[in-house]
């Protein structure tokens, strides 16, 4: 099993994702440059955070046109796991792999801090190592993480168990960015694509705080 970390010009959490997979989980991982077109040798794809193409125009709006995204969509359609973190989530939404949109935080400003999120569905390849209701402490760092979708989409997300994580009221101000239904992470219909604003790759080691995010990667790759 090999893992691909997609690198756009402006990606800046690529090395963090690489570190978790290669050095903490001992699974081989490659950086895959956005101009490449082949993901056939990989078992999972990570679209990391950052500012792809500077987030000019709109976060993720230009990155979706990169050659690699065509292949990421095919890869996802074959049922293989794809996780988009922060800017990666924004790219997946822009590319249509996930519904809705990520708009400016409710206070407009960039927000970097730990948040408390709740596992809403533990019956997915990304969350099977957690129990539903588990509370995780994981950092966020974004300006556009306010999840928005049409009422029909929200209803489907809820009915179909596609809400993976929500911001938990135990946190200082509950819903830090103003997301609808306090959504912190969602899945596609088939539940093999996860997009989330919090950064589990930054919460994977004891020394950096609680390693609450590691299980997402362990679960996705079926390792301990």
């Amino acid at each position, binding site marked *: 099993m090999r893992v691909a970390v997609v690198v756009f*010009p*402006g990606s*800046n*959490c690529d*090395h*963090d994702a690489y*570190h*978790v997979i290669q*050095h903490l989980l001992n699974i081989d991982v490659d950086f895959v*440059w956005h101009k490449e077109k082949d993901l056939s040798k990989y078992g999972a794809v990570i679209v990391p*955070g*950052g*500012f792809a*193409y*500077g*987030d*000019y125009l709109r976060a993720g709006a230009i990155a979706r046109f990169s050659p690699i995204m065509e292949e990421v969509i095919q890869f996802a359609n074959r049922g293989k796991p794809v996780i988009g973190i922060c800017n990666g989530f924004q790219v997946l939404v822009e590319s249509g792999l996930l519904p809705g949109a990520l708009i400016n935080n409710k206070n407009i*400003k*960039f*927000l*970097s*801090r730990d948040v408390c999120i709740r596992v809403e569905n533990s019956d997915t390849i990304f969350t099977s190592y957690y129990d539903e209701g588990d509370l995780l402490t994981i*950092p966020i*760092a974004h300006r556009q993480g306010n999840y928005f979708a049409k009422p029909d989409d929200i209803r489907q997300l809820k009915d179909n168990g596609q809400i993976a994580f929500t911001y938990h009221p135990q946190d200082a101000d509950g819903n830090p960015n103003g997301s609808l239904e306090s959504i912190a992470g969602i899945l596609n219909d088939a539940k093999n694509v996860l997009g989330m604003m919090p*950064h589990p*790759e*930054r919460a*994977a*080691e004891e*020394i*950096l705080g609680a390693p609450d995010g590691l299980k997402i990667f362990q679960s996705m790759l079926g390792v301990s």
Partner: protein
Amino acid sequence: MARYPKVTLETAIDHGLSEKEFDEIQSILGRVPNYVELGVFSVMWSEHCSYKSSIKMIKTLPRSGGRLLVEAGEENAGLIDIGDDLAVAFKIESHNHPSAVEPYQGAATGVGGIMRDIFTMGARPVISMNSLRFGSLDEPRNRFLLEHVVEGIADYSNCLGIPTLGGEVVIEDSYSGNPLINAFSLGLVKKGKTASAIAKGEGNPVFIVGAKTGRDGIHGATFASVELTDESESRKSNVQVGDPFLEKLLLEASLELCSKSWLVGMQDMGAAGITCSSSEMAAKGNVGITINIDKVPLREPGMNAYETLLSESQERMLVVIEKKFEKELKIIFDKWDLNCTKIGVVNSSGRLEVFEKRRKVVDIPAESLVLGGGAPEYELPAKEPEYISTANTFSIDNLAEPADYNKVLLTLLASPNISSKKWVYQQYDSTVRSNTVIGPGSDAGVIRIKGTKKALAVSTDCNGKYVYLNPRLGGEIAVAEAARNVVCTGAEPIAITNCLNFGNPNDPEIYWQFKEAVTGIGKVCRTLNTPVTGGNVSFYNESSLGAVYPSPVIGMVGLIEDTKHITTMSFKTPNDFIIVLGGLNGKLGGSEYLKTIHGRIEGPIAPLNIEFEMRVQEVCLEAIKKGIVNSAHDISDGGLLVNIAESIIAAEPGIGAKIDCERRLRTDELLFGECQSAIIITIPENNLIDLIMISQELDIPTQTIGRVTDNNLLTVNQNISVERPKLESAYNLSFENIMKG
């Protein structure tokens, strides 16, 4: 063909040169310079580039020793050996004047500039910090400046993906109209893999890479070398515009380039753009560079050689490589979709020659332009200001003692200088790169170094009030406190960088402040064996309101040998002893208490005994390394009680403290007096013997002054009893409320 004005003494004076300097230029060239050459000399000999008024004092600072690999001034930043085959490069720099006029871009490009200084050496930036000073936030203009400076820093460093670990935000009236915006960056590099800012090898090509050149920032260096006036607003064209995305690409491409054996040298373009980078690289290599200015990719048409040479457009580098590797160079920059254009060639003439439309428009010996070469050096007259004696007559005898100490504590916790700057630092990505162990809001920020057991601690520090009241002692204290801050995290202080922000050096009273402060900094750096790796001098920080407080900001780097030693300031376990290392002999002179509660800024400030200070730091570090310390936090602004309150607020819910301590001091002196060489640590009761062994060996007093509790309460003797939620809301919410106006 571009037509240039005729050069006369008046043109030279308009360019900020003195008559004597103009004469000197004519004798160097053996003729009157042409207009383009005059522009080149004027920026290279500006205070900003030449350090002409400061360099003699700067040379008195310790610039070698310790773990220093590259000395200050040799390259863009000093280089420090941290073992494990690794070195760190770091530096702090000001961007004050641009930020006063255009806060967002001014601050953003300040970050961009300091990052390029680091990655042009081949080091990958891994820490960003900033030290910010503004006038009273009661004034909307100062709130506006703060809001947009913070946003500019956040947008730039967040996009680059470099964690901001904190710094300072200081509010004093003296910074109104002339805020101080100092940005710090630290990079990691494999030893021996650094790039040098040098040109050599006859026939080797010279490339400009990165952004295109526009008209932005022309004469930015000269602009930085005069006081701000009402006209400054109209000089927004002197301010550069930043593009952090382009910088991110340039960062990755440059680091890729640094791994190539055929790279000869690389220099970033900051102040004075192509002019400065080319003349410095040529002078360093003892060679000449010929530039065809028509080859430079331009952002707008019709720019002449004068504008192109002096442009301070951001995100550009000058690169010299071995000939025959031009194709390989192109491949790297094509990958990152960046410009890469050959504009010149290295020769043996020792001259900077520039051709425009085949006409030679610059022909100057490179050496004559640069610091350490022909650039002027001045020793300016200095005179002790009159205020020094009048402002240092404070006596507690004529100060009324407050009736309600609870209220005093809450007022201090809510004051702009002490309250939590969460509103500011939550806008900075502090966890990207997944190395951050201690983020903003502590004595120092800490990152671990992947692949080793080591970690780095960084603190920036300066108390402008202290330096104003006593420049020499204030300078000493800035270094001592920055060192104490990193010690509290478990780090050994290893080196500093400094950003010396002062008023107009031609005023003998300002120059006296400068000389005194630098003397103080040098003394303590020598004692602590923390050499100065480099930094920046920013003069002319004056507005219509006068000069800023002299503010020599110290960026201290500390090395933690083993990540298991990393210590934080929060109280940990109920019943732990709260212990003072050093002594409690707080003085109200220069304190936040005296300013906030009584509206007075007066000295004398508390003295510093540097030998004692060093031993206090040693005790703290030894105890931490022994594993007997649960928390450490030094006493600084606000004194003992603010220190205790901060350690409670940072702790897990429920934690409080009970303090019982008597001294032959008045209660406000004891609780809110500020002193040096005092660190509060907490230890489990069982570790007391171990601590005493260490402290006796180094002859440092330790005194237990209380215990950590689990009752959510801070009590002190009979004077104070405050519930924790009250402490928290005063400390956590007030800055945000102030910013709401």
